[in-house]
């Protein structure tokens, strides 16, 4: 099997979504953290960069709205693909994911000799996806409460506003910490990945990596090669790039 053979892993829509969310995440963190850490020197410097607090907040709010729309679009497209194209819901957690997680943990502790054999999305990817989805809902929801406190207080207890501020501030910090530890490790610094897993940008994964990281998906896509690979990985004949069997929803 050649290292130059690829499989399409992410559709154009998914790659664009990742790029949009990534950009918005950076903008939101940059314009949000100075407000959380208001008494630090760098916060004042960032505010100066935007020309003032109102200007920085304007950017933060516009980016927040963009994230809200991106989230709505995402679920709209997932729904469309599921209903119209009968796509598989490959991001939904299954029993197997919990088994995989336990297996993988045992493998790390040397209680298993081989790592868990993952399907299209492993439990770590699903965790991050759903973390993003729920985190997003908290951030957008609390952000809207903070943006329209007068409307909220007309119908609901006023205490929700400082509660939203605490939630927004802490959830934002947590999202940032997850991204700079977990996501950056898994996409950049993990020894097999370093320096950069480009799949989410190019949309393509090499067959070699697919077989290594998602063996169960590989088996479904290339049942013949899998059998051959077991016999001898070096002598597997080259195969043209293949389309995945079904477009997978999820970012």
């Amino acid at each position: 099997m050649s290292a130059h053979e690829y499989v399409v892993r992410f559709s154009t829509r998914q790659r664009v979504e990742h790029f949009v969310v990534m950009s918005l995440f950076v903008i939101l963190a940059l314009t949000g953290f100075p407000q959380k850490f208001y008494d630090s020197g760098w916060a004042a410097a960032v505010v100066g960069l935007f020309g003032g607090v109102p200007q920085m907040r304007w950017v933060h709010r516009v980016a927040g709205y963009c994230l809200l729309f991106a989230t709505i679009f995402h679920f709209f497209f997932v729904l469309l693909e599921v209903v119209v194209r009968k796509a598989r819901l490959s991001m939904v957690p299954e029993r197997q994911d919990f088994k995989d997680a336990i297996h993988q943990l045992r493998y790390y502790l040397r209680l298993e000799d081989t790592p868990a054999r993952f399907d299209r999305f492993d439990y770590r990817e699903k965790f991050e996806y759903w973390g993003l989805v729920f985190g997003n809902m908290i951030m957008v929801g609390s952000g809207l409460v903070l943006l329209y406190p007068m409307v909220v207080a007309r119908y609901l207890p006023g205490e929700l506003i400082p509660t939203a501020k605490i939630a927004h501030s802490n959830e934002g910090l947590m999202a940032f910490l997850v991204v700079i530890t977990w996501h950056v490790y898994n996409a950049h610094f993990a020894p097999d990945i370093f320096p950069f897993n480009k799949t989410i940008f190019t949309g393509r994964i090499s067959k070699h990596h697919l077989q290594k990281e998602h063996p169960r998906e590989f088996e479904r896509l290339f049942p013949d090669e899998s059998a051959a690979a077991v016999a001898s990985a070096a002598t597997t004949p080259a195969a043209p790039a293949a389309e995945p069997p079904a477009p997978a929803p999820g970012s």
Partner: protein
Amino acid sequence: MSLLQHRPWLATGLLAAMFAAPSYGLPEPPKESPAEEAEGCLGCHEDPSIEVAFADGTRRTLQVDRNAFAQSVHFGKVACSECHPGFQEIPHPERRYASEDEFRAGMRQACQTCHFQDYSRYMDGVHHAVAKEGGAAPTCVDCHDAHAVTPPGKPRSRVSDTCSTCHSDVAETYASSVHGRLLAGPRPDDAPVCTDCHRSHDIQDPKSQAFLLRTPETCGGCHSDNQRMKPYGLSTKVMSTYLADFHGMTASLAAPHAEGSTRVTAVCVDCHGVHDITKVDEPGSKVMKENLLKTCQQCHPDAAGDFPAAWLSHFEPSLERAPLVYLTRQFYVIFIPFVIGGLVLQILLHFWRVVVNR
């Protein structure tokens, strides 16, 4: 500085004395003390009829009150001629002033010789800015007096009396405020007077955001000081709780970039009032529960319903007060380290296993 240089008449006298005294050599020049010099000046300037006429037709008395001058911190230390150089010659050479303003402007220069720092601060202040534009604004002697210069803050109430000369309406409002009443009471040293908040020489435009956005620091100077607040049973958390909230955070961020007078956020005085500040539980208090919605509406005209409850009234969230805020905060205090700790542990395990495999 040579005594002779500034007193040509004295030099003439000395020369005459030298010739008149043949066998004693050069005599010691009779060194005149500041008090002695003042005595000489007061010889004429005690007279109430002594006046100066200006080109614009106005006149001004040149009388100096001996008793008031004797109380001055300068008396006996600073000679008349140090503030009024060039007047040693008698009769004084004729000078022409267009107006009293011009006359006073010349006199003001004298203060900076010794009080350079305060003088340059004054140049940065709003009074100088007004004076520069030709407006009526006080200079050094209007607040400190020219000859009866005494410590400006003794007693403390003297400061507000001085300012009330021009700002009588503000002084009246202040006098009936909680701070004004404290000043008139038995513990005047605890009360903030005008200059504690506005400063004395480099007074900023009180309507400018540069000044207003520093209000938390100004008020916090006393209100976060345990020693000062203890006798009054006032919380010292007022500043930290303000800063932790949306308004305070905005004020901190906006203060270094403040310009103009468009309000950026609510500061202490927007809710509590300025010169009319009251105790929080006093009738008419802008911040008591019954009046709070109206106070919010000053900036948030659409505020209605439970909106004032969005502000925790300088209380730190607890189970009794704002339980939802408290519990949300406690949740994250546990949840963030749990999640991040778990993920980092998994990263380390993964890395370790990869290394072991090699």
